[in-house]
């Protein structure tokens, strides 16, 4: 009887165990699901709180920055490409990178999951294939010392460089080559402002239309050749503009949705009606970016005649030149290189177009520029020089029948720091037509930026002045996306490592006293237990 019952009991036990096993697995699965759900729910902005326990609220974003994050229309990816800097900035750059990382974490966490961080490893000094591809997608090929951040949303992207955009460094003179040794230092750090502005830039949901004039010998917008504008076009598109061309022959009136009209390097005059249409568009409150080619301007219906009533005279002929310094430090003239110059902070004004460049100590490369003269425009207009040539520049006039001069200053050629770029603002003019309004700028106002050197915009030279051009188009389109966030200097918590006695006491306390104390306590406990 008992023998007969045993298999049945075993079978019942196995079934019970199986039942409990299944119950256990199911319960574990449900609990895991619950934990996952809780984790995901807690990440929602509405139920997520961050308590900043630092003394100076160093981890709390400014209200302006929080507002930008709250209004992000789509997800943003931030690619981090940090690499080491050169001597003597290595340590300072690491510290700046650390601060940026911290800021990125705060941004990510405050964004409610809409900002994603991707870290790329450059510790070996080179990028892997995936990172290189990403870098190319972001519109650059290499990472300069210190590194950069690539901020992208959909097709739009912006690059923020650690050195220049986020922080400024002074290399100092640690070896004392020029007198008393001076350690390197971080001059400024404006990470929050730079990141928030870049976020705003890529996350804007407007797509202003930019049209380029064609048919007058302008540089070709589609051409990838040295003298083409394909890089210019790609940069504008990456910045959120919709780029196209305006052919007067096909559409005599400018399309109403044109936010900015650009004319880069025209060498032939505009047709009379075209000239009038252009003039009318700008004087109704349109936005215009003009860059004359290095050739002498046509005597009529050219950019010169267009800008003149607005208060800006473009020199008809001649190129702004500056002496070049040879290896021995002596100024040299008489060669085509005199047409090139680098305008540094002294030549950059505080206008929004160049202010970011000036502040970060960057220079603007100029090549074969026309001189500009600021005069008086319409009543209520403002004509501002934006950048000026270097001291000692002269206007090199062409020889008779030639396009260029001898690259040497002569008595009849004027010498001064010529204006090379100017910004004009004026209210819509009566008689030009109904004032133009655009969605973001309710007050109709003409914005004109004239830059004397169209050669700087071509593919072969574009990268040097990329930011200047993008700033100019954004200013013209009144895309006022700059948010001012005050730079904060975090408290430094440091032990004076120069004081040997302090270091020795710290060494003793941390490495000897504390472990020894725990060992003694352990021995004491063992001794007590044995007794």
């Amino acid at each position: 009887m008992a023998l007969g019952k045993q298999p049945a009991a075993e079978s019942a036990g196995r079934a019970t165990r199986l039942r409990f096993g299944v119950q256990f697995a199911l319960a574990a699965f449900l609990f895991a699901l619950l934990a996952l759900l809780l984790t995901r729910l807690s990440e929602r902005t509405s139920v997520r709180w961050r308590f900043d326990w630092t003394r100076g609220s160093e981890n709390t974003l400014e209200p302006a920055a929080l507002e930008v994050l709250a209004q992000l229309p789509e997800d943003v990816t931030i690619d981090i490409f940090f690499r080491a800097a050169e001597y003597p900035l290595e340590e300072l750059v690491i510290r700046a990178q650390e601060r940026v990382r911290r800021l990125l974490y705060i941004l990510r966490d405050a964004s409610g999951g809409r900002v994603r961080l991707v870290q790329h490893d450059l510790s070996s000094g080179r990028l892997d294939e995936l990172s290189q591809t990403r870098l190319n997608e972001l519109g650059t090929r290499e990472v300069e010392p210190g590194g950069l951040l690539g901020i992208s949303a959909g097709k739009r992207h912006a690059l923020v460089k650690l050195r220049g955009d986020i922080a400024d460094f002074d290399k100092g003179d640690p070896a004392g080559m020029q007198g008393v040794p001076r350690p390197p230092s971080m001059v400024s750090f404006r990470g929050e402002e730079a990141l928030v502005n870049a976020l705003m830039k890529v996350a804007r949901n407007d797509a202003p239309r930019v049209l380029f004039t064609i048919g007058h010998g302008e540089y070709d917008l589609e051409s990838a050749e040295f003298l083409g504008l394909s890089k210019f076009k790609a940069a504008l598109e990456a910045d959120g503009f919709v780029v196209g061309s305006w052919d007067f022959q096909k559409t005599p009136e400018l399309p109403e949705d044109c936010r900015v009209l650009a004319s880069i390097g025209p060498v032939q005059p505009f047709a009379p009606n075209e000239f009038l249409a252009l003039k009318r568009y700008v004087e109704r409150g349109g936005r215009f970016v003009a860059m004359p080619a290095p050739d002498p301007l046509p005597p009529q219906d050219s950019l010169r005649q267009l800008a003149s009533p607005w208060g800006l005279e473009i020199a008809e002929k001649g190129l702004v030149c500056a002496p070049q310094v040879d290896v021995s430090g002596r100024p040299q003239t008489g060669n085509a290189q005199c047409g090139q110059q680098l305008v540094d902070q002294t030549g950059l004004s505080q206008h929004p177009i160049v202010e970011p460049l000036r502040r970060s100590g960057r220079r603007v490369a100029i090549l074969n520029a026309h001189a500009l003269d600021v005069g008086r425009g319409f009543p209520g207009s403002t004509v501002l020089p934006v950048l000026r040539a270097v001291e000692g520049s002269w206007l090199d006039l062409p020889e008779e029948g030639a396009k260029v001069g001898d690259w040497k200053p002569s008595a009849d050629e004027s010498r001064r720091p010529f204006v090379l770029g100017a910004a004009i603002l004026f209210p819509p003019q009566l008689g030009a037509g109904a004032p133009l309004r655009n969605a973001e700028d309710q007050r109709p106002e003409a914005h004109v930026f004239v830059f004397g050197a169209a050669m700087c915009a071509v593919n072969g030279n574009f990268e040097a002045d990329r930011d200047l051009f993008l700033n100019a188009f954004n200013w013209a389109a009144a895309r006022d996306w700059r948010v001012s966030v005050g730079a904060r200097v975090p408290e430094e918590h440091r032990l004076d490592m120069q004081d040997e006695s302090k270091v020795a006491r710290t060494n003793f306390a941390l490495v000897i006293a504390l472990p020894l104390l725990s060992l003694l306590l352990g021995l004491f406990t063992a001794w007590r237990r044995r007794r």
Partner: protein
Amino acid sequence: MRGFGAIYRRELAALFLGPLAWTLLCIALLLNGYLFLIYLRGSGGDVDLALRFSLGESFVFWALCVLFPPLLTMRMLSEESRTGMLEYLLTAPVSDVAVICGKFAAALSFMGILWGSVFVYAGVLAWQGAPIDWGVVCASWLGAVLCSALFCGTGLWTSSLTGTPVVAAFAAVVINLVIVLLPLLAGLSGVTALAIASETVDVPSHLRSAFVFGVIDTAYVVFFLAWSAFFLFLSTRALEARRWR
């Protein structure tokens, strides 16, 4: 939770009356103190950076996090199961939850004491004249304790599954390693969706992006608590299952 206090006191006493806890504490303090000084020297005396390395950003911190909790918890259930002590415990008037939570709290208390060494470090530095942001120290400590809670949970679970402490410790170390390396493994897989999904359970990043900077982020607190609770739940169920064997 009847009997929680008694279990907790018993486990704590067992830990601190035995040589293992003191040995581990001494080794950890020696290692941590030495490395803290190296970080301090390397950063030119930057206290925040040294603290950050000590509690969240260094390899040694993660090594301690992965190894120590299993060493503490390996005996808690498996050893008792092997010696038969567990049977007495299970027949005592205490609930399974209290047994698990009491043991877990004891292990976590030890980890809290271990990571509490940063208060001593900060105190010593303050004594030497370095300004200390105590908010950062407290938040870093809390983060390290929460992170340890997760690993104590895994340790307790594996301990509840086997009667051999070494096997329990080894299994817990493997699980802890997987938890810590999960984002890295997901990244290496090259599958973007997997990498994004792993961000939710990215333990190192949760610690590094908030606590070590002096931020208490409720999302990360919930994360650590929820997943610690998950492993405690598994441990409780495993313990419960013993009654039916």
